[in-house]
């Protein structure tokens, strides 16, 4: 299947031609297929946020291209405007962009900019609100009356309502408690189920990324360190840790056990698969 979005040798240089010149990302290439769930992992300052702003044309690469269905999104103004609607971008702390008088109107901001009909807007807002678990009553409230978690979900709904084919979320769970994190993950899952859109999920938590992604892209210092499915990526856990990246706790535990001579696979990355691995070992009678 042809990929939905392809990034080709993306490089972005901040403040070119000044003493502050700095390459935020260097020669990054990857592609995203329809319906895929991708985790983009990297440290603070590894270029994650810069990279995602290229995917809908907010930033223009210093060199390289972003292709959406084979069309360069920076080829013309229209192409880049179309890309804005097909690639939805949720920024870090999205609740700080709420501005309308009611939650309903705030969620409707995106669809309205798309030029949809009044009825279509209404149905999309309702649908997006349902995906993030906001009830009818809160749609009529001012966004500033909502609780922190609700605000974040309302802001997510604002992007969901545009029904992007690729939803990019920049650290959507930053600053939330475990319950809030689970809620946001559930919202993303529910959006994905009802639309079948591809998701690019940016995080610095290997744990979260490993749990939900089909494929991982690991960034380090603005370049791709490794990419592949979680098992492939975490089979290189030792290298990841050497590069200063965190690996899931359970992977670290299994690495330690393996190094002490217990025959466990160190490429385990979720608690469930860890359990299976231990049961396998027990039944093998080697413990």
């Amino acid at each position: 299947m042809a990929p939905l979005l392809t990034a080709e040798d993306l490089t972005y240089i901040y403040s070119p031609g000044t003493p502050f010149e700095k390459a935020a990302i260097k020669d990054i290439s990857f592609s995203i297929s329809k319906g895929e769930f991708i985790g983009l992992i990297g440290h603070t300052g590894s270029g994650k946020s810069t990279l995602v702003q290229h995917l809908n044309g907010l930033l223009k690469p210093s060199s390289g291209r972003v292709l959406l269905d084979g069309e360069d999104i920076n080829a013309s103004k229209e192409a880049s405007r179309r890309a804005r609607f097909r690639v939805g971008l949720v920024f870090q702390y999205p609740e700080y962009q709420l501005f309308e008088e009611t939650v309903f109107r705030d969620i409707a901001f995106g669809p309205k900019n798309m030029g949809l009909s009044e009825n279509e807007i209404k149905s999309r807002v309702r649908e997006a609100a349902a995906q993030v678990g906001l009830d009818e009553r809160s749609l009529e409230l001012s966004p500033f009356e909502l609780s922190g978690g609700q605000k974040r979900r309302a802001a997510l709904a604002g992007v969901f309502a545009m029904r992007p084919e690729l939803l990019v979320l920049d650290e959507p769970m930053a600053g939330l408690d475990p319950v809030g994190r689970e809620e946001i993950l559930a919202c993303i899952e529910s959006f994905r189920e009802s639309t079948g859109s591809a998701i690019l999920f940016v995080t610095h938590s290997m744990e979260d990324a490993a749990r939900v992604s089909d494929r991982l892209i690991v960034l380090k210092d603005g370049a791709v360190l490794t990419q592949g499915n979680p098992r492939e990526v975490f089979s290189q856990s030792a290298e990841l840790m050497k590069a200063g990246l965190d690996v899931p706790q359970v992977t670290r535990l299994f690495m330690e056990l393996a190094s002490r001579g217990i025959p466990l696979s160190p490429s385990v990355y979720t608690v469930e698969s860890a359990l299976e691995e231990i049961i396998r070992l027990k039944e093998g009678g080697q413990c």
Partner: protein
Amino acid sequence: MLKDITLGQFFPGKSAIHRLDPRTKIICVMAFVVSIFVSSSFLGYGISFAFLGVCIKISGISPKTVLKSLKPLIFILIFTGILNMLYTPGRELASFWIFTITAEGIRNAVFMILRIVLLIASTSMLTYTTSPIALTDALERLLSPLKKLKVPVHEFAMMMTIALRFIPTLIEETDKIMSAQKARGADFDSGSLMDRAKALVPILVPLFVSAFRRADELATAMECRLYHGGEGRTRLNTTVMTSLDFRAFVLVGLICLASCLSGRVVSF
């Protein structure tokens, strides 16, 4: 985008001018400005210009930067020049329609332009060589006698410091909010004037909300650290006047005096 705007025109450096106590610099610039308005001879302005030139040379700031600070004023310079030239009574040189150009008018016009140029260049030298925080600190200390008159000097200085501190933060915030709204399809660069004004609402509302939130948080943080105004407060870095400052005072005093009195010695 917005980040490219250079704010606060402070150029860090280690020159003698940078090392002067900011209070010294403020007083010297004030004395200098007074002297250029008192002075009324070309010799006087020659002295002032020469002195400013030496200062720029010592500070290591490129003369180009100083000239740039004058650029926005070209219109005002021309305007003042023309007005002075036309509306000063005196010995008539030429006249047409309702305008007359007088010898005194031309002299006045040239003086006025020189004064404005000197004024702007000397005050920009102050901001180029002094960090904004050092400036507000110095202002607070210079104005502290006014506290006796119940003027809240410390509070004003604190407000200025906080405002300066938050300029880059709010610019970054604006940038982020703009990107976020653009990602939702907001369009800031097309449409009629009215459309563009309306397009600012999605930026301004979150920006104000965030400014209030930050103000709230900062106030709480300051209270937690027992901030209670200026009373009994000491500073981390107290600037002390050194012999360098006294030499600067004497030098600037002499220069100002020379430029003021030069009109009495020579007649041009």
